[in-house]
């Protein structure tokens, strides 16, 4: 880039008395005028007021300024305003520099006006030094293919695809099984509807199937992914051969599966010890033997027993099944007597005894908790056990025995259930590991996909362009998977709707000539924005294959960590270059600038 002679204009703000009351602003302005490259300096009562902004615009024209500095408050609130003003006057907004002499100076040194004035002078001088080295930047726009790929045809994937399709985006929906529906296909009924599981989601399946914007690829899997946000080329392998598609965004909705608790509570050893999902299957297929007494054991393999986490959904699901087994109607509240006297409202006696061994029932929120209350009223028994002292399952003759330590009563007890149902956690599917590598998105310690930020970016990956929903993220109920799916669709639709992605021009840039292809930058980049590509280089008439790194500006977030890692100064960060930063350091040290422009 051609380096023009810097012509810097500096606007020092009084901010009423906020700066002016403690910093000698006229003195500062006189000083600033003596700084190299400064061709104009003025003071304003309020630079952010209309007249202050007009003064900037006028000065740019009048003095042919090619750099502007405002010394006032924090860039946090006012930088966008001043940048806009520069642009209005035809100046590239990256040629603007902000110096904070209010929060960082006048307000914290109110008792020492002379020192505050000296500090303000130096802070501005440092800013001037940096500004002299600023370069105009263009924010690169990378075009986006307005199509999406959704991985997984369960409720989450279907919902995400449907929402994208309804927003007008062509969407590929990839499902490894030959039918849509995912995990729900294994279930008997859903607690939310009280109805048959498959029947409950049939309207969704029908909508997806009928939608013209959705390309349904069942019995298919993702084979390969190339590219980055806006520009992925994906290869999907299916029965009918391979499909190659260009998509702008990818949603991971690959779901989860149930943990098989081999070796726990006689699972795999005794016949009538099953998992919750197996039990659902038995119910669905009407294959349930006649049972008089049933025991559920919660947290089988979870919360530290094998896996670390709580699987969120098992308590409600066990309760749902228990209520069905007990088979009485839910009791209704009844008030008798003319005063406030309330009679108890427990249901009448029932045939099947159900006991749920638990470590504290986790029915959060409204619906689940109300179900738990109803279940107790129906006579479902809840017995707490301590994690260090779980129930033991054995056999006496052909009878199953549960020996347990009642946690509240501190007593050893036994019961003889006909059936034992183990509530085991959801776990990641085995294909996830490979998928995570293919998409360059991480898995967490719990093996579930790991989002960009636990609190504020739950559906994004750190890698732009890839999004997440449903049980691929962590165990959730179907309704939760559905709102997450809508959310992931929303996140994915942003680049698709804009048709481009544009990043603030503070991204890292690789000087290919200097790059030695060591790959440290790519290793350290938290966003996978750096790629190492093999390039052919002609060296003394020999063609060499050398690795060179390149930063994808659509993915880079401008943290600058790679710049520091590079051992050969091959990477710079736009707007935060080493010469710019060291110029400021030099001014601080009292060296007049510019000394050197490397």
């Amino acid at each position, binding site marked *: 880039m051609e380096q023009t002679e810097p012509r810097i204009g500096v606007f020092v703000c009084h901010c009423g008395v906020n700066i002016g009351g403690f910093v000698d602003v006229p003195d500062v302005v006189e000083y600033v005028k003596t700084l190299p490259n400064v061709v104009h300096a003025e003071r304003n009562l309020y630079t952010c007021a209309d007249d202050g902004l007009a003064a900037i615009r006028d000065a740019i024209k009048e003095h042919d300024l090619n750099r502007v500095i405002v010394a006032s408050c924090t860039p946090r609130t006012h930088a966008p305003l001043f940048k806009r003003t520069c642009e209005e006057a035809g100046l590239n907004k990256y040629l603007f520099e902000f110096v904070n002499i209010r929060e960082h100076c006048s307000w914290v040194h109110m008792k020492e006006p002379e020192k505050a004035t000296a500090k303000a002078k130096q802070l501005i001088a440092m800013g001037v030094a940096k500004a002299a080295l600023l370069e105009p930047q263009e924010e690169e726009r990378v075009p986006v293919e307005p199509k999406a790929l959704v991985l997984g045809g369960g409720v989450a994937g279907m919902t995400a695809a449907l929402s994208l399709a309804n927003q007008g985006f062509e969407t590929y929906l990839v499902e490894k099984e030959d039918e849509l529906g995912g995990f729900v296909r294994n279930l008997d009924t859903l607690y939310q509807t009280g109805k048959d599981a498959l029947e409950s989601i049939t309207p969704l399946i029908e909508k997806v199937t009928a939608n013209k914007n959705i390309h349904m690829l069942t019995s298919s899997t993702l084979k390969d992914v190339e590219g980055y946000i806006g520009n992925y080329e994906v290869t999907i392998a299916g029965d009918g051969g391979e499909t190659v598609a260009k998509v702008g965004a990818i949603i991971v909705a690959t779901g989860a599966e149930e943990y098989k608790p081999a070796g726990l509570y006689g699972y795999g050893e005794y016949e009538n010890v099953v998992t919750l999902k197996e039990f659902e299957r038995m119910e669905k297929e009407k294959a349930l033997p006649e049972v008089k007494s049933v025991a559920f054991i919660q947290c089988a393999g979870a919360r530290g027993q094998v896996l670390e986490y709580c699987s969120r959904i098992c308590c409600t699901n066990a309760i749902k099944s228990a209520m069905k087994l007990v088979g009485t109607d839910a009791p209704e509240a009844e008030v*008798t*007597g*003319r*005063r*406030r*006297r*309330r*009679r*108890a*409202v*427990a*249901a*009448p*006696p029932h045939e099947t005894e159900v006991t749920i061994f638990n470590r504290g*029932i986790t029915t959060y929120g409204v619906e689940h908790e109300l179900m738990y*209350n109803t279940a*107790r*009223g*129906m*006579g479902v*028994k*809840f*017995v*707490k056990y301590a994690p260090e002292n779980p129930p033991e399952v054995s056999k006496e003759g052909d009878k199953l025995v549960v020996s347990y330590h*009642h946690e*509240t*009563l501190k*007593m050893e*007890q036994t019961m003889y259930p006909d059936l034992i149902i183990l509530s085991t956690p959801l776990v990641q599917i085995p294909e996830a590991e490979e998928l995570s590598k293919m998409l360059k998105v991480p898995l967490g310690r719990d093996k579930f996909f790991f989002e960009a930020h636990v609190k504020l970016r739950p559906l994004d990956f750190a890698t732009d362009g890839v999004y997440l929903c449903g049980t691929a993220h962590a165990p959730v109920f179907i309704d939760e998977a559905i709102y997450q799916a809508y959310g992931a669709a929303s996140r994915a639709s942003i680049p698709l709707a804009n048709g481009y992605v544009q990043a603030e021009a503070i991204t890292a840039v690789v000087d290919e000539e200097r790059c030695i292809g060591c790959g440290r930058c790519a290793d350290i980049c938290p966003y996978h924005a750096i790629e190492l590509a093999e390039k052919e280089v002609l060296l003394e008439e020999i063609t060499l294959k050398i690795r060179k790194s390149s930063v994808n500006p659509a993915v880079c977030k401008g943290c600058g960590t790679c710049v520091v890692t590079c051992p050969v100064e091959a990477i710079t960060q736009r707007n935060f270059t080493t010469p710019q930063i060291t110029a400021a350091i030099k001014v601080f040290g009292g060296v007049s600038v510019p000394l050197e422009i490397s």
Partner: protein
Amino acid sequence: MTAVDDLIRDAGAYYCIECGKCTTVCPIANANPEFAPRLIVVKAMAGIANVALEPDIWRCMTCETCSEMCPYNVLYSEFIRGLRAEAVSTGIVPVCSQHDLMQTMMRIMATPGIEQNRLGWVTPDLKIADKGEVFYFTGCLPQMSTIFRDQEDVNLLGIAQSAVKIFNRAGITPVVSNQEVCCGHDLNWTGDEVNFEKLMRINLDLIKKSGAAKVVFTCAECLRTFEIDYQDIAGDLDYELLHISEFVDDLVAEGKITFDGVEEKVTYHDPCRLGRHLGIYDAPRNVIGAIEGMDLIEMERTREKSACCGVSAWLTCDSIAKEMQLARMMEAVGTGGDKLITSCPKCQIHLRCAISEEMPIEREKADIPIEDFTILVANSIKAGA
């Protein structure tokens, strides 16, 4: 299906989530760490042994502090009451204070064909009738006043006399019957359901014959027994059941009664049966508030969180009960009030009992006159109104 299972259902103990809140608020548990209401329920739910045989079921005062605070509304006192009946049916004999005198007396009353002489307190100035709109249910006041004749500062007959005075002032001639028998409250709470029912039948027949549309009670226990226990067994009664405070509250609202002004500071003790069992908190306060110049100062433990007088159905009188009574009396003294008002004759008996010659503290720290609500009201009514 065992009797205990039925009880679990009737009391809603199924809803227990073992949170222990009952224990934390239980006055007994607070004094005796060995006692925990939570354990009794959880044991019953776990089906371990027969909880009806646990001695702890007799120590509970059935004050319902726990039920009041139970997040899931488990009717703890109902559960305990049932367990006691179950215990008695297995042959257990409860040990009651006063050498079982009260219960024996009640069982005798349940015997048909005995002609009582219970109206000796009706002085000539009091107008009563055999039939009428309003039935005044006296309860055991005549018998109790005999039994506790030597106890200082307890005026039980005065309660009955005051009640009739109030009726008469309002232009009402109440039915007061010599055939009335004990409501059976104490039998019901010590597991004698058989004799309890006998007493109930006698009373219900009697009231029916009187033609009353309203039955008014000066005893919180009697009202609770009619309102809840009788109606549970006999179904809804077709007359209104009112505590005297509610009755007077209405009279005041209608302007049928006005009060003389009196400069007095009082505090009010909510009896368990009237308060937590029946939810009557406002009526007595409204009436006291209507007496000009009378200042009601609340104790810290009031209304739903009122302290228990320590004894119920003559079962639970022991050193813990005495401590609770003293603490309550000290709390009353602490208000700076001139007297303590209550609306349960038994609260009065039990609380006064604690103020004996031998006390672990200086007498003045716990000594405050106790007056029954009904007497307070009768004494404050404007003459000739």
